[in-house]
């Protein structure tokens, strides 16, 4: 079996020669179309880059200035076919590649695969009436309307022309009774079919029509092949692995994509970064493998790794801060926190030592003291303080309290954490804990007399009011919270056991 490759290239001659050498290594033919816009003399460079026998199987197609999305792309391909036809060489298949492609399976495996296939055509042929092939953008408009402009150069005028023609009801039909087919630019055709396509392409009416279509390279070849070859002999698939992002840009392949490429059940990959030398080196090792694995018959793309990546990464990792993005500055890092915690909300005088001791005795529970005390950070659990927030330096904590809390929660991932918050505290935490979905507030209301630290007697009503307002707000926000009553600033034994069973229940829902 002998193959002929047509390579469309426009820059990066080093990697192009690397690809050419790789393709020539197995005794096959290569025709290069070198973009006319690039003044570099490729034919001259071939003398220094390739040896005699290699050069004898390399040919250069007549050069065109290629523009993406335009007819010139088809012309360049046809020039390659014409060069092959003129060469008087025989070959079984013509395979179209670009200069940024590289084989990912040995050519011997490809030949075995093609032999097994029994002379079928490998070209995506999608009927736009039955299937959608173009993810987003123009479909029928590509050939129904006249396109004289390149969207890349004149995007606004291009769209305007499309709108106008739509309004005017312009709907062209394909000439010669052809039925439109879409498909990737990258195909592999048998020598006979390629010859037939070339002959057919010489008809003037056909050329005139496709010259004014948009992205004709994805329309011209599938349409002609579908007309020339019975459907049973067309495998509507590509031998080349390629992928387009949601933004419609081709996925570039880098040094770290070796494993990803090895998973692909295709023979070539598009498109490799010009700097991915290491990737090419590693692929060379695969290609040189004397006992390659069985040929991939399904020609399928394996995208789970890519899909898993984009699903997660493009909005940031769950439960992690995203640098340079914040939906509500007020919450700070608590916005990203996915770790639940509980808060004992009480007035200034309620004594909670016994309650905290009971909670700390529960396995996996840490109940700190007043993390947000005005003059220091009361970690309260002996032996642990966050090293970045020393107990005697509350200024760093006070710069952004929710961030401090998020850091404390992250530093002890195995523990179910709670702390005491005395109201009124005069800072944002009294509201944050009401609206943070991870916070479980436990309100402890005083049932009787109440004194401020400076001895002024306030009545219970006031303390109740402050706490109650918050409680009501928490409930309005849809928060489930526990309500306990303290008598003479103490929780009763019954209250403590109620509290401890509530926290244990919360903890069962807490997974880390």
């Amino acid at each position, binding site marked *: 079996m002998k193959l002929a490759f047509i390579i469309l290239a426009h820059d990066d001659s080093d990697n192009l020669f690397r690809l050419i050498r790789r393709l020539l290594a197995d005794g096959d033919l290569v025709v290069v179309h070198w973009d006319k816009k690039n003044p570099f003399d490729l034919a001259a460079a071939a003398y220094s880059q390739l040896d005699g026998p290699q050069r004898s199987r390399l040919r250069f197609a007549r050069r065109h200035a290629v523009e993406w999305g335009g007819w010139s792309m088809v012309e360049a391909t046809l020039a390659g076919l014409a060069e092959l036809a003129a060469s008087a060489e025989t070959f079984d298949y013509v395979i179209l590649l670009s200069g940024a492609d590289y084989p990912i399976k040995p050519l011997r495996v490809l030949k075995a695969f093609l032999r097994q296939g029994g002379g079928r055509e490998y070209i995506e042929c999608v009927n736009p009436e039955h299937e959608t092939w173009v993810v987003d953008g123009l479909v029928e408009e590509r050939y129904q309307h006249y396109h004289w402009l390149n969207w890349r150069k004149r995007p606004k005028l291009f769209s305007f022309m499309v709108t106008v023609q739509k309004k005017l009801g312009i709907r062209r039909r394909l000439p010669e009774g052809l039925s439109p087919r879409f498909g990737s630019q990258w195909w592999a055709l048998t020598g006979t079919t390629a010859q037939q396509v070339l002959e057919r392409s010489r008809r003037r009416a056909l050329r005139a029509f496709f010259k004014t279509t948009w992205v004709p390279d994805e329309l011209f070849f599938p349409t002609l092949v579908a007309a020339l070859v019975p459907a049973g002999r067309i495998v509507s698939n590509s031998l080349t692995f390629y992928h387009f992002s949601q933004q419609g840009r081709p996925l570039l392949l880098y040094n770290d994509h070796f494993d990803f490429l090895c998973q692909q059940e295709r023979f070539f990959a598009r498109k490799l970064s010009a*700097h991915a030398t290491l990737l090419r080196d590693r692929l060379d090792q695969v290609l040189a493998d004397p006992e390659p694995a069985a040929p991939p018959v399904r020609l399928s793309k394996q995208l789970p790794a*890519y899909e898993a990546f984009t699903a997660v990464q493009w909005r940031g990792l769950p439960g992690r801060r995203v640098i340079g993005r914040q939906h509500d500055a007020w919450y700070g890092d608590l916005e990203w926190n996915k770790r639940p915690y509980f808060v004992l909300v009480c007035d200034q005088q309620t004594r909670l030592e016994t309650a905290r001791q009971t909670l700390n005795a529960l396995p996996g529970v840490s109940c700190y003291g007043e993390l947000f005390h005005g003059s220091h950070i009361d970690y309260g659990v002996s032996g642990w303080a966050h090293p970045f927030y020393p107990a005697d330096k509350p200024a760093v904590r006070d710069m952004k309290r929710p961030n401090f809390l998020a850091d404390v929660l992250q530093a002890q991932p195995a523990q179910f954490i709670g702390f005491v918050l005395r109201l009124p505290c005069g800072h944002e935490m009294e509201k944050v804990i009401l609206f943070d979905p991870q916070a479980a507030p436990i309100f402890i209301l005083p049932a009787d007399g109440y004194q401020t630290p400076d001895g002024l007697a306030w009545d219970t009503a006031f303390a109740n009011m402050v706490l109650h307002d918050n409680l009501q707000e928490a409930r309005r926000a849809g928060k489930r919270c526990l309500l306990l009553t303290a008598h003479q600033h103490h929780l009763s034994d019954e209250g403590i056991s109620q509290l401890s069973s509530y926290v244990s229940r919360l903890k069962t829902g807490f997974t880390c």
Partner: protein
Amino acid sequence: MRKILRFLKKALPLQLKARRHGRDLALVKDCTAHINGKDILAFIVLRNEAVRLPYFFDYYRHLGVGHFLIIDNGSDDGLLEVIGAAADCSVWHTQASYKAAKFGVHWLNFLLRKYGTGHWCLTVDPDEFLVYPYSDSRNLRELTHYLEQEGKPSLFTLMLDMYSDTAIEQATYQAGQDPLAICPWFDGTGYYQDKRPHYGEWWIRGGVRRRAFFADQPEHSPALNKTVLVHWRWYYAYIASTHIVWPNRLNNPHFADTLAPTGCLLHFKYLSLLREKAEEEVHRQEHYAGSFEYQRYLAGLDAQAYLWTSASVRFQDWRQCVDLGLMTTGRWF
């Protein structure tokens, strides 16, 4: 019309100042003819940092920087000998005041406009090492190609202050050494980010600086946000070091809808070299707010400050920064 006027009102004074201070610079090693149209350029302002340069050059050459444009503010440590005959380095010399040039910003803007227009420009200090998504397998050319394709003209970075597990002065550095081998630790949490209205930049403070040197006045802790890699146009200008760049859209770390790649800037200040530097800067009074920052460092050095704590994280690679939420890959697969 009003838009154009507003643009000129901001752009022209910045460009004029840059031009005025640009006259201070004398080109002492001219290799600018070697600058290639597609090169990534590195711009550096330095003073007596020759000891750091050998490794610095290696690091950024490996990442694909094509040319180094160095502004030497009165070094006396044999800078030119260290650089030698390297064809990818050009050096400007000046004895003028760093402070008067707005801490080097006007000098940088001058060179950026003159040589950087149309290039991707990296503006870093000799103690800053850029890490970005896939930086171990993809070079800066690939990163900038991606950013350009996605229509993103800049890369946002978070500065990570690196330190050793010994006292600062015991972390001795020798020329050519990888500073990461001496100072592999950093703070994985303890950062505070806030968007500021005027230039729309994300103001990030925290890390070891804030807790070790500014614990009593955390509000004065230096900014950690830097936009160091920019696809330069003639009217662009840095405003305050590389923390803020104008126009405002360059300060935007992400796209409107999704995330873009961001980087981390490993910053190796807390080495044995700090004392000499701090003493000189406190004496020269050429740094921001009367070298207030350096006074703090000197006090820390005198107190034999240990920066390492049990919550410190040992640096591994860029993936770790992504896992810690200090860097994003965006949709760059």
